[in-house]
């Protein structure tokens, strides 16, 4: 009897593996930077290019680093959510304007709203490489000590915001 059940068992195990595999997102590559200090940067501010902002200026608070660009289509998808989040004033959002043209970036923010406390310009994508950016938009949660605690790849969904990002921010703010 068992000899007839074996192939069935193997088949079901295979189906199980394939079902899990199909539901994984190959685009989401876990970042090795989680729980590591956020890479240092010192970049010109989008609205005031003669001013620079560095990582150390942002120490002592929990903040989000959102990588965006005017050429990035899926950034539009998450943008209203960011604008709403900024209005709620729960956590400051800093923008990393990745490989963008300054004027195009400014125009984009005028059109879609500016949720950023400040945006910094990474025109050549160098800081993007330091942060392991490969698919814009990406969002990092960075704690008071300047340590990266979470990375969200792709557009933020309302679900990801409610279930992951906001609880994380609350927890980090409390500690």
């Amino acid at each position, binding site marked *: 009897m068992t000899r007839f059940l074996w192939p069935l068992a193997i088949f079901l195990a295979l189906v199980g593996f394939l079902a899990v595999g199909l539901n994984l997102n190959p685009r989401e*590559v876990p970042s*090795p930077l989680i729980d590591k200090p956020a890479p240092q940067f010192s970049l010109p501010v989008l609205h005031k290019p003669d001013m620079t902002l560095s990582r150390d200026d942002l120490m002592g608070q929990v903040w989000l680093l959102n990588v965006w660009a005017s050429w990035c289509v899926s950034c539009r998808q998450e943008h209203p959510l960011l604008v709403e989040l900024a209005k709620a004033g729960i956590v400051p959002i800093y923008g990393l304007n990745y490989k963008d043209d300054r004027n195009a970036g400014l125009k984009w923010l005028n059109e879609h709203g500016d949720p950023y406390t400040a945006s910094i310009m990474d025109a050549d*994508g160098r800081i993007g*490489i330091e942060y392991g950016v*490969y698919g814009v938009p990406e969002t990092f949660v960075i704690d008071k000590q300047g340590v990266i605690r979470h990375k969200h790849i792709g557009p933020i969904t309302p679900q990801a915001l409610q279930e992951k990002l906001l609880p994380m921010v609350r927890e980090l703010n409390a500690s």
Partner: protein
Amino acid sequence: MLRKFVAAVFAVLIHLPGIAAEAVPASDDPVLEKRVMEVGHLLRCLVCQNQTIADSHAELAVDLKNEIREMMRAGKSDQEIIDFMVARYGDFVLYKPQVKSTTWLLWFGPGVLLVLGLGTLFVKLRRRTAQIQAAELTPEQKRQAYSLLEQADGGDSK
């Protein structure tokens, strides 16, 4: 006049594939370029995940090749450059995965399956030969069988 124009158009067309395939020459140093491509072949392009950054023309791959080039000019070793990429993009950036405890299944799984399969096949075949041998009759049994058959023949012909 027309003939000249047609010739000119063809001359351009003939060169078009060449123009399309040729990436912008990044530097004039062929030795450096060769090293950039060698290291580039070891690294995965995370935008187009089944290509190495040496093969890919994605913007990120171009940027990373520039980064590699600059690190080489700064005297960094190949290993240092690979470590730099792994530190930022994780193990997935390695086009050939490392052999370590979390990748043992990936590396040795197929081999283990092959050995298990061959082992099962071997055992099954052995059992089957044993069964066939067991079915063979001793001379005594054969004699009995023939005599039974003969009796049966006799019975039928009555």
